[in-house]
Every structure is written in C-alpha cells, then in structure tokens.
C-alpha cells in the first residue's frame, strides 16, 4: 500500500518548507553575495562586499548590542517575575483558577496593538503610566520616556515584559504542578525553611522546564521587531534599533536588498549558534 510509506504523508509539509522556507533562504544567501550598484541599481557578484561592509558598520554593532540588551534584560525580568508569580498563583484554593486564566490574556493581544497601548500609556503629557511616574517626582513633567535615548529601551521593554511574562508564568506553573510530592513532604518533616526548599528542591527540579522556557523565549526575543517598530521606530536615533529593525530600515529606506539580507542572515547565524551552544550546555531538547 502507498499509505504504508512515509513519503506521501510528508510531501505537503516538505513542499511548504522547500518552496516558502528553503528557497527564500538560499535566495537570501545568494543576495548577500551580490553588490547593489548605487546608481544603476544592478546586482553584481561580489561575495565579500556586504560581509566586510557589515563588519565595519557601527550601526550593526549598535543593533547587535541593543538586541543583546533587549534579549538579556527581558529574559531576566520575565524569568524572575514569571517564577515569582507562578509560585504565588500555584494554589488549589477557590478563585486561583480564574486568576491563572486571566493571566494568560496578555499573551494573545497582537504585539503591534500592545505596542500601541504602551505608546499611549507612556505618553509624557497624557499617558496614565507616564503621569503616574511623573507624579512620584522621578521624572520631570512632560518627560517623554520613549523620546529620550536613555529611557526609550526601558519603555519598550515594559511592553515586552508585560506581554510575555505570562508565558513564563504558564510554563513555570506547569513545571511546579508536575513536581513529585515526596521530596517536599520529607523536607517539611526535616524542618526545612521555605527558602531552603525553593533553592535546594524546587529550583533544581525545575531546571529542565526553565531551560526550555529560556530557549523558546530567547529565540523570539532575538528577533525583536514589533515593539521597537511601533513604539520608537528604532529611535530616537538608533537607541532602540535591533538587528531585525535595522534590516527593515535598510529595506524600506534605500532598498539595498543585498545588505539588508546580509544583516538578516547574521541574525539567523547568531540565533543558531547561541541556541546550539545553549542546548548542548544545558542538555535541553525541544
């Protein structure tokens, strides 16, 4: 029987991945080896042109730095908050199920809409959050959080952390609920404190769950685009420019497709490299 063979079952998925994934990827690699003539706009084979331009482009390094800061800060905050909130909400008592369900809602709002929400709330003259911060005296009246280079990244991260902390909460909750009961009962009998139980038992037993959460969140954070595009348009200047948004700016700006592709491929290479090392080091598999 033909249906005994895996080939027909895998054919549609393979076709999708070849036509819409592999072919554009090879095309992108080919593009990165071309030089676009600034006047005639013709492409000519110049295999090292874009890659050496990339190495000497300060904006690439700035964008890489911003991407790393964004990824690192968001991961750190989301992990700590996610774990803390999961411990808080991990209870079988009445009402906690509802709180856990409410906690998932931020996840499904379109990120571009979330970005707009925070753009409004962080507006220096009439945004509710900005007004709240200004009322505490930390910032001067009318201060534009997203319009100031030193605070813009923090503003963008606020939207990111709000939307995706619930992702960590959910995964941590699932991890907490799958822990075996016996070690905790034994620890209670031995008179261990809550802090000891958390650091000696909960955390080590959750390490696999935490590693999976970090991996999935990390690869998404590294492609950060939606929030910076909508909230600051990579600005002010290049203060919140990430690798993806820089590639997008080149694409929309001077339409240098080969160079934009090269930056996009750099992002891909870094994601693969970092996640490969992470997966090996933490012995984690998806």
């Amino acid at each position, binding site marked *: *029987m033909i*249906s005994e063979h*895996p080939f027909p*079952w*895998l054919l549609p*998925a*393979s076709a*999708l*991945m070849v*036509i819409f*994934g592999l*072919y*554009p990827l090879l095309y*992108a690699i080919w593009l990165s080896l071309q030089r676009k003539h600034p006047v005639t706009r013709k492409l000519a084979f110049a295999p090292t042109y874009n890659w050496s331009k990339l190495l000497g482009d300060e904006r690439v390094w700035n964008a890489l730095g911003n991407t790393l800061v964004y990824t690192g800060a968001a991961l750190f905050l989301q992990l700590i908050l996610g774990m803390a909130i999961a411990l*808080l*909400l991990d*209870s079988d008592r009445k009402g906690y199920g509802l709180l856990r*369900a409410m906690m*998932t*809602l*931020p996840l*499904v*709002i*379109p*990120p*571009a*809409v979330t970005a*707009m*929400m925070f753009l*409004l*709330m962080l507006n220096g003259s*009439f945004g*509710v959050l900005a007004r709240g911060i200004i009322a505490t005296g930390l910032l001067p009246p009318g201060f534009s959080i997203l319009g100031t280079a030193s605070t813009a990244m923090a503003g963008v991260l606020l939207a990111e952390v*709000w939307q995706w*902390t619930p*992702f960590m909460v*959910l*995964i941590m*909750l*699932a*991890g907490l609920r799958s822990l075996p009961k016996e070690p905790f009962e034994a620890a209670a009998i031995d008179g261990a404190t809550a802090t000891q139980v958390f650091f000696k038992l909960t955390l080590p037993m959750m390490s696999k769950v935490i590693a*999976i*959460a970090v991996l*999935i969140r990390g*690869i998404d954070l590294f492609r950060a*685009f*939606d929030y910076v*595009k*909508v909230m600051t348009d990579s600005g002010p200047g290049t203060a919140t420019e990430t*690798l993806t948004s820089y590639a*997008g700016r080149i*694409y929309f700006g001077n339409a240098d*497709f080969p160079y*934009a*592709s090269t930056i*996009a491929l750099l*992002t*891909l290479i870094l994601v693969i490299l970092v996640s490969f090392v992470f997966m090996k080091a933490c012995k984690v*598999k*998806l």
Partner: protein
Amino acid sequence: MEQPRHLRILRDIAAVFVTFIFMFPILWWALTSIKPISAVFDKDRVVFFDFVPTLINYAVTLLGLSRSGLAIDQGIGMGVGGAEAYDSRHAILDSVIVSIGATAVTMAVAVFAAYALSRMAFNGRAAYLNWVLGQRFMPPIAILIPLVTIYKDAGLRDNDSLYGGYLGLMMIYALMNLPIALLLMKSFFDDVPKDVDEAAMIDGATRWQSFSKVVLPMVRGGVAASAVLVFIFSWTEFLLSLFLTTSIRTVPVKIQTFVTSTGNEWGFIAALGTAAAIPSFIFILLVQRHLVRGLTLGSLKE
C-alpha cells in the same frame, strides 16, 4: 502543609493585586475606546471614570460610519476628518480570511506529517524533525527580503489576480506555524498507543483507514487546540504582513495607519485594538488545558 490564616489572606491579596496589574493595560485600553476624545487628551488630569461614554469609536472603525456626522450628532466638535481611512471592516475581513486560510493550510499539512513522524520508522526521521524545528529558530526577517521579490514576481503580493495576496500571506503564515502545529500534533499522536492502529490493521484496515477512521478521531481535542493556537498567531502577526502585502492590510497593520502626522487617533486605535483582542481572548480560554503544551511545541505537558 496548611498555612496560617493571616498568611493565606495576605497571599490572596497579593495574587489579586498582581493579576490586576497585568489586567490594567487591557482595562485601560477598553476604557479608552469608549472615551470621548477630550477625555483621552486631557492634559490637566488623568480621566478615569468621570466621562460620558461614547460608542463613536466603534461606530467609525467597525461600522464604517462617518466620524464628522457622528461628532455633530453628539455635539463633539473635535477631530473632523475623512471617514474611509478609519473604516476597518475591510482590514477585519482580510485578517479573518488570511487567519482562517492559514489555519486550514497549516493543519492540513501538519496532521499528515505528524502522523507519519509519530507512527512510522524510517531513515532520516530525526533529521526531518530537526528541519521542522529549524523553521521555529529561523527569524522571519532572514527569508523576508527575498520573499518580497519572489512574491512580486509570482503575483502573491496583492489581490490583483486570483486573490494572490491572500494566498501569499496564508502560505507564509502556514510555514511559520508549521513547527508548532506539527510538533504539537505529533505529541498528541504519541499519546495514542500504537496498539490502536495495529489492532485496526490486523482487522484489515489500511494505514490510511486506521489513520482517518480510528486515530484521527481520537486526537480531535489536539487538532482543535493546535488550530486555535495557529489562528491566534496568524491573527496577531505583524512583521510579515507589513512587509509582504500591499493592498491587503491585516488588523495589526491597519491599526498603525491611525498614527498620523497630525496626531494619533487614540479613540479609533483603542476601539479596533479592543475589538481585535476579543476573539483571541475567547479562543485562548477554550484551549487553556493545552496552552503550555502548545507554547513549548509539545515538549511540556500539563
């Protein structure tokens, strides 16, 4: 281990408070959508509840009514402008068509492949799974720039011929969602014991019959959960839609056009944003049980 009563109450208060903090932006957004413009832009104080609610923002964005007409009816003088620019009915239709189409394509492709990867032993099975997983690691920007050129040549950027624009966006969303749908479906198939298909085949069923008549009906819940997740991810997608399409504007892209040089139309933005979130809210509450499994591509089960 029973906590003392006062600690329990303290914890309850903390849990409610934290949840409220996460709900606040959503509530604020919904509140903004029914505020008159003057209450949104009040520079002297933050307006919480002391305003006269209005549905003008929904009437303009969801029903396509003219704002100037409505404003005069309600005696609001501010902001008189073109109505068509804010009529979002077409964007909603575009989003619905693309999201449903993408979900259908993704699931159709993923279910077959997931069954084979769960049930059949063949050379290169592990490599194939890595290829699928690789799609999840790939930042969309890596293939986006060539895709624009490919789509332009193939007529997949706009709807000029045969709704090519819808098809183009559906297919790329299908690719982006394939890893989630496929690996999630595989984990659901893995939950069904192999004896089930073997018993069916001993009784004379072909592989195809045992799949379609026996195993697939057993994972209906999994198919529904995967489809809902794919729908939500398609519904909320922004980057690909922004770059790849011209005449089609999905809701997340459309909403950005309300940011104008003369000021942002916060009322309309809030109304469309709230309306766009509601279907996702309903769907996500339906699949709570499988959410963690979905978000971790089947590697964690609740």
